[in-house]
């Protein structure tokens, strides 16, 4: 007893439990490999990419790159005639065209995928024979590599030999065969078609998970009260799955805004579908404008950063809680 009293006087500052101290220490050690890996493979390259955008780096002269300030973004030369000519990404028509294409593609694809995904999810949420088969079937487009789906659709959308034109002609929707991928008027439609086909399943599954968390008795109560199903959908179902929907939309939006492979393979040369990722890679590696391409990729990064921050703020998405 006496010993306890002496000791307790010494411990006016409480001693930390070695268990918890040990756990915190272990946690730090456990996190170290991941943090190192992410720092090396993501953090450092990101910083270097941003740095390159402020230099005159080219593919051949990567290591002799010199700082040039904002010249890649905006620069001007005063001609002897007194005329001032602006250069740089920010006044590059090609770049703004890519921005416009990206936004157009992102918005249309995500909106349509959400609507179709919701429809498919509602179907899958109903109980019917063969539901398992449908669920398995819609996973197929998701599992097929993007490059492969691009090729498969390129074949189906081929102007002379494509089965899509054949179908549309048989149905009497078109009379002339369309060169979907090559014709500037249709290339965006072609890209959208493939992307929607491939990505709607992902949307549907995320929304379905949200739907399945809605308790059944909510519907039963609505049915007993004689509420029309359409009204139930808008007044009950939609508000309840809104959190899941919001998360699905932001993930898809982020994904759509950085699209590269589908467009690179399906419509390689169409200015109508050239997106920010495509144009910036083109400058980086194909046109030997490494620094200029870096500036474009940096702008895309900043753009997405602003977009996702704004989205989380305004839509009040709780990414953490939504997972469980």
């Amino acid at each position, binding site marked *: 007893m006496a010993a306890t009293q002496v000791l307790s006087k010494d411990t006016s500052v409480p001693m930390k439990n070695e268990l918890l101290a040990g756990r915190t220490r272990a946690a730090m050690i*456990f996190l170290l490999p991941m943090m190192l890996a992410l720092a090396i*493979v993501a953090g450092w*390259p990101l910083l270097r990419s941003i740095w390159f955008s402020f230099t005159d780096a080219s593919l051949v002269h990567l290591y002799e790159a010199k700082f040039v300030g904002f010249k890649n973004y905006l620069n001007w030369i005063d001609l002897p005639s007194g005329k001032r000519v602006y250069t740089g990404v920010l006044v590059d028509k090609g770049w703004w065209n890519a921005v416009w294409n990206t936004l157009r593609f992102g918005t249309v694809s995500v909106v349509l995928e959400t609507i179709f995904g919701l429809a498919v999810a509602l179907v899958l949420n109903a109980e019917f024979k063969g539901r398992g088969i449908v669920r398995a079937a819609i996973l*197929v487009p998701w599992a097929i590599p993007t490059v492969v789906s691009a090729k498969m659709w390129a074949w189906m959308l081929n102007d002379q030999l494509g089965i899509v034109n054949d179908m549309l002609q048989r149905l009497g929707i078109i009379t002339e065969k369309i060169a979907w991928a090559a014709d500037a008027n249709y290339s965006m439609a072609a890209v959208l078609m493939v992307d929607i086909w491939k990505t709607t399943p992902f949307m549907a599954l995320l929304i379905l998970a949200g739907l399945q968390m809605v308790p059944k008795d909510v519907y039963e109560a609505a049915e007993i009260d004689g509420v029309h199903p359409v009204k139930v959908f808008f007044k009950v179902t939609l508000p309840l799955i809104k959190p899941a929907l919001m998360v699905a939309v932001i993930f898809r939006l982020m994904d759509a805004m950085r699209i590269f492979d589908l467009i690179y393979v399906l419509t390689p040369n169409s200015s109508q579908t050239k997106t920010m990722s495509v144009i910036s890679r083109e400058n980086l590696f194909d046109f030997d404008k490494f620094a200029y391409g870096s500036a474009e990729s940096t702008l895309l990064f900043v753009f997405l950063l602003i977009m996702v921050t704004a989205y989380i703020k305004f839509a009040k998405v709780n990414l953490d809680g939504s997972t*469980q």
Partner: protein
Amino acid sequence: MAMKYLKSTAFYVLVVFIVVQALFPFYYAIITSFKSGSHIFEITYLPNDFSLQNYKDVLFKGNGTFIRNFWNSIVIATSTVVLSLFIAVTASYALSRVRFRGRSLMLMTILAVSMFPQIAVLAGLFELIKGLGIYNTPYALIFAYTIFTLPFTVWVLTTFMRDLPIEIEEAAIVDGATPWVIIRRVFLPLMWPALVTTGLLAFIAAWNEFLFALTFTSSMDTRTVPVGISMLSGNSEHEIPWGMIMAASVIVTLPLIALVLIFQRKIISGLTAGGVKG
């Protein structure tokens, strides 16, 4: 009564439409891949030829480049997944089970990295890979793919581990288990389903990747399958070998579809738990 029939008929029409649109492109690729010679120029809805010529061409023409690419894809995707899972298991234990300052900030960072536009790091990664001397080797891709597989696996495993009952861990603590022993002897045996799911999803992501594979490899025999397929060309520049491309597509996709169908339920739960890219 009639109304009810109409409704259920309409519903099944919708169901059939969903299934057909989902499967038709792949079906069409299969029937095309069996067409040889001039059959390829006939638009048919049902198979009209069963030639294996396209498959033979893909596999054995061009000195086995395609087989080489296929093997590259397997090695790279598998290594990436194993590496990521290895790092992710301990990290997600720390993130899900230990209270420490800055934990939610770290989780948000991980999520942010997983949503990263890959193009934003492309220039820096290119420099790093050149600098490390691994350009145009499988290591370049294993290295680069960590950028999306690692955050994804950490995120999914963290949500999974958070759901493991806390009392089991506390029982192990009372039994004298250190965090490492808890992971190895208590949690890992309980996590096999989650590891399989996460690994599979990460595998698919690595298998399908295109941008890095296109940028960090430069020769025929270091390419992965997606790049290989995108570059398949025929005898002349203007003749696209559709039959061969479809055969290659089928070969690349069949293993994936088999995996997806076998692990259907797990994949769906993993996708929705992770909520990350498809």
